[in-house]
Structure formats: C-alpha cells, structure tokens
C-alpha cells in the first residue's frame, strides 16, 4: 500500500501540508485562491503538533494495519480496504458518536468545527496520484512511500 511517510527532522512547521489538505477538500474549488482562510468550514485533516521542545511534528493519518478508529466505529462508517490499505470514512454512514476521535491513539482525528457532525479524516485525496500534503511539502518531510 501507499503510505504518507513522515520524516520529522525535516519539518519546519510551514503548514503547507495543512493548507494543501484544506485546499484539496474545499468544496468551493481546488485552487489556492478558492480558499478562504476566515471560513472555519475549511479545515485540514492533518495538523502539526509541537512537542515539549517546540519541535514540530506532522500528525497525519497512518491508515493503520490495526485501525483503532475502525474497531471502535459502531456505524460501519470506518472501513479498511485490504487491497489499497486505506482506512476510509463514509460520512453518510457516520452516526457522529465520535468514538473514533476518542480511540485514535495518535490524536489524528477531530470533529468538524462548524456542526460537529462529521469526522475529519484523511482519504489520501481520493485516489489523487500524489496527495496534496505531500505535493505541497517543500522540505521533503512528507513523501509518498510504498509499503510491503
């Protein structure tokens, strides 16, 4: 499967990956000028954490082999495709219980900020050849890698 690889040492917290993610999932268009940063409905599905030494850390869905979000999902909204490896989220099935947010050990997931109805979850840009976060990363911190 493809997995977005993270090399934390190269991260400089430029947030281009977060912006890329926001752009790609913006319903109003996929260009940088379509993005209204004051509109809170534009949210990234990834984020940068800062550890105790202020060292930036990209926190991006791993599409885990043993996905806690899926084990805990009671509506069937989270599924793992055993061929592509992707853990997909179907917002139409989701019952907004947010057990997945509680279960993801890496703190990747959150509810949407506007309605708190859906979960913000990486979908690998829906088959896009290079995920937008990777494409936008200027340092090489994020790379698309092949596993297995």
């Amino acid at each position: 499967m493809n997995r977005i690889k993270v090399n934390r040492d190269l991260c400089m917290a430029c947030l281009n990956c977060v912006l890329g993610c926001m752009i790609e999932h913006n319903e109003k268009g996929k260009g940088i000028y379509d993005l209204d940063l004051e509109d809170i409905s534009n949210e990234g599905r990834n984020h940068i954490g800062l550890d105790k030494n202020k060292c930036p850390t990209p926190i991006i869905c791993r599409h885990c082999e043993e996905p806690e979000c899926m084990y805990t999902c009671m509506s069937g909204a989270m599924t793992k495709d055993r061929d592509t490896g992707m853990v997909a989220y179907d917002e139409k099935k989701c019952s907004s219980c947010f057990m997945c947010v509680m279960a993801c050990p890496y703190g990747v997931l959150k509810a949407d900020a506007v309605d708190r109805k859906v979960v913000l979850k990486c979908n690998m840009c829906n088959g896009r050849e290079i995920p937008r976060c990777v494409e936008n990363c200027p340092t090489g911190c994020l790379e698309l890698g092949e596993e297995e």
Partner: protein
Amino acid sequence: MCRKLPNRMLGVRGGGVNMRYLILGASAAGINCAKTIRELDSHGEITMVSEDKYIYSRCMLHHIIGEMRTIEEMSFAEDKFLENYKVNWIRDTRVEKLKSHDKKVILDNGESIGYDKLLIATGASSFIPPVKNLREGKGVYGLRNIEDALRIREDAKKVSSIVVLGAGLVGIDGIVGLLEQDANLFLVEMFHRILPMQLDEVSALRYESLFEREGVTIYTGVRAEEVILSKDNRVTGIKLGNGKVIDCGMIVVATGVRPNVDFIEDNTIRVNKGIVINSRSETNISDVYAAGDVTGESPIWPLAVKQGITAAYNMVGIKKELEDSFSLRNSMNFLGLVTVSLGLIEAPDESYSISVETYGDNYKKIIHRDGIIYGAIIQGDISYCGVLTYLIKNKINISNIDKDIFDIDYSDFFSIKENGEYEYVV
C-alpha cells in the same frame, strides 16, 4: 493487511474436510468474528445464527425511535457482507440449547447444528428491575433490540407522556430519539445526576439544562417505587420514592443489562457475571469461545469487536491475545454537545491533582497523580483526545514533559515504525 498464511495450515480438519465455524449472534462481536475468520481461512464453512432479523447497530436505535434512519441505514456491516465473506446466516432463530459435549446447538425450530469451533456472541438483554408492576405492565419497554425501538416509536405516537427510567447512556439515547416525537418526556434517575457513571457534576449539569430546555422533566436522586396499571394492565403512571406520581402511558426501562446465557447447560461453560473468558476469548471448554456483552464485562461496542476478532484468530488456530481491554471510555454527543469520558471521573482522594480548563462551551478536567493520568472529562472540543485515551489506559508517565497538561499531544511521544506507522516512545 491481514497476515497471509498458507491455506493448508488453516481451517482444514483431518482428511481435508473444511473447518465448521459456528457463531451465535450477528452483532458487533459475531459479525467481526465472521469477517476475520474469512480473512484468515478462505475455505472454512461459517454459519451465523441470530435472533436478530437484521444486521444493525444497537448503538443507533435512537435513530429508529426518532425516525432519522431506515432499518437498512442501521446496518454497520458493509454491503453484500454475507456474500463477500461467504457467511451462511440463519436469522430470526433462537438457540435453545448448547450441547457442548456433542459439539452442537439446538435451535428453536428443532434443528441442530454441529460445529468444530463455536463463538458465543449472544450479547445481553435489558434488565427490568423488580419494581412493583413494572414487569407486568403493558407499555413497558427495554431498549436493546430494533423491535423495541420500533414498538417504542409506534406507541409514542399514541401516548401523551413517557417516562424513561435510568439516565445512563441508553436512557439518554432513548430520550434523544423520543424528542423527535411529540409526547411529554420525563427522565428518572436514582443517582443525584444524569450519566453518573460517565460524568461529573459540572459536565452532567450542562446536559441536564440542555434537555430541560428541550422540555424534558428530570428527576434525579429518586427511585421508581411502583407502576400504576389500568384494569387491563396498561401503564397509566409511575409513583416515585418521593411520593410524586407521574401520569404516563409508556415506560422505557434503561437500568442495565444481563448477559444472554440461558441456553447454556449447568456445569458446562463457566458463567460468572457472564461467560468467563481469557485474553484469547476462550471459555473453559475447548473449542468454545465467547466475546462481547455476553461476557458480562464492560458492555461497550469496541470491546465486543476486539474480543470477536481475537476469538477469530484463535478459532482458526493462530494464537492471539487481546491486550487492550480498557473499557472506561465513553463518548457521547447529545443535543450538539460532545463529551469524552475516560477512566476516573472524580479524584478518589486528595493525593490526586485535578487540572481544569474552561473556555467558551468547553470544560476539560484531567485527574492525575505523580505523572500518571487516571481520568479525564473533555466536553465541547474533543479534538485529538485519543492521545489521552492512550496515556490513561497505558498509565504513561508524563512528569518529564514540561508542558501544560492540556497541550500534551502525540508529538511528545513521536516515533515511526519501519512500515511508516506511528508508535509511542516513552
């Protein structure tokens, strides 16, 4: 990806005959077990028997009461589950007896089914407490099966007032569904606040006022004493311990559950609070496994799923232990207010420290001692709180992380595995 093992190692009985797996129950534990068995053993015969006529998530029954979802939309299994995973499902059928010595079960239609490996995942049923007239009354419902929800929904249209007994997660789900109907709603809870197992005073009171704003009348710190019945045994009211009488045409009982074990013969499978299992989901009888609410442990969905998956591995002959049975975790989303409750909700004594943060509609509380977090309530913005779940369940020491406790996140434990997944370094 599932581990790929050569098929000759799996699911094959002596003489090349396929292994016969039998699963009792078609819910969280049963479905996940069936799915996992098929991923590991492409040849075995999988049969699943259930009283349930549909595959659906019990956690969403309020969507039925409130007419927000159809029965089809209640399914948590993927489309074409039975075909894709080659599962033979016998539905709407009760298991009457388990003959573990003969390795077979007897069904309510008189038929019997033999097995090589058996999973008992029959879950639990609503417990109706011994309140006077409660068990006799017509118009008294538990909330466990989709049939309960459908009946509650139909009756709710005919009565003007409804009492929900018990303000735990199931009772509150009942209220949430019933709010979509027109009847007056009353919620009665023995403890002095709602959601007493999950929430502290502050976080519970916020829900109480939200429900009251929706017109729900809440009585806490009071027991139901007696149900008042008409001549033909229909519910007409309920008398509380404080003498108050509420007129009502229906009572929804949400005061806990009891494991479904009545088909188990004496002196066979060990039953305590429920069926006793080890970390491999094995019972005391060989080739018989159990998973989910039937174990009487913690009746939560994720544990049922994980025990079901663990059972599947062991049933096909791959040793697997369930390490994570942490179950003091609940998330809830009622009337637009989201809360996650983890571990302890109150500090047991003064040796614990309590850190609290409030802003906007957010209330966050973390209980800790000597660098170990024992509990947390996160209400409002729950973003990324899965890290807390991990820290609490694994008792990770955070004393060397010089940060506001509310700002600790995964970056403080970051490490990458060879396959690109994250893991914790502590």
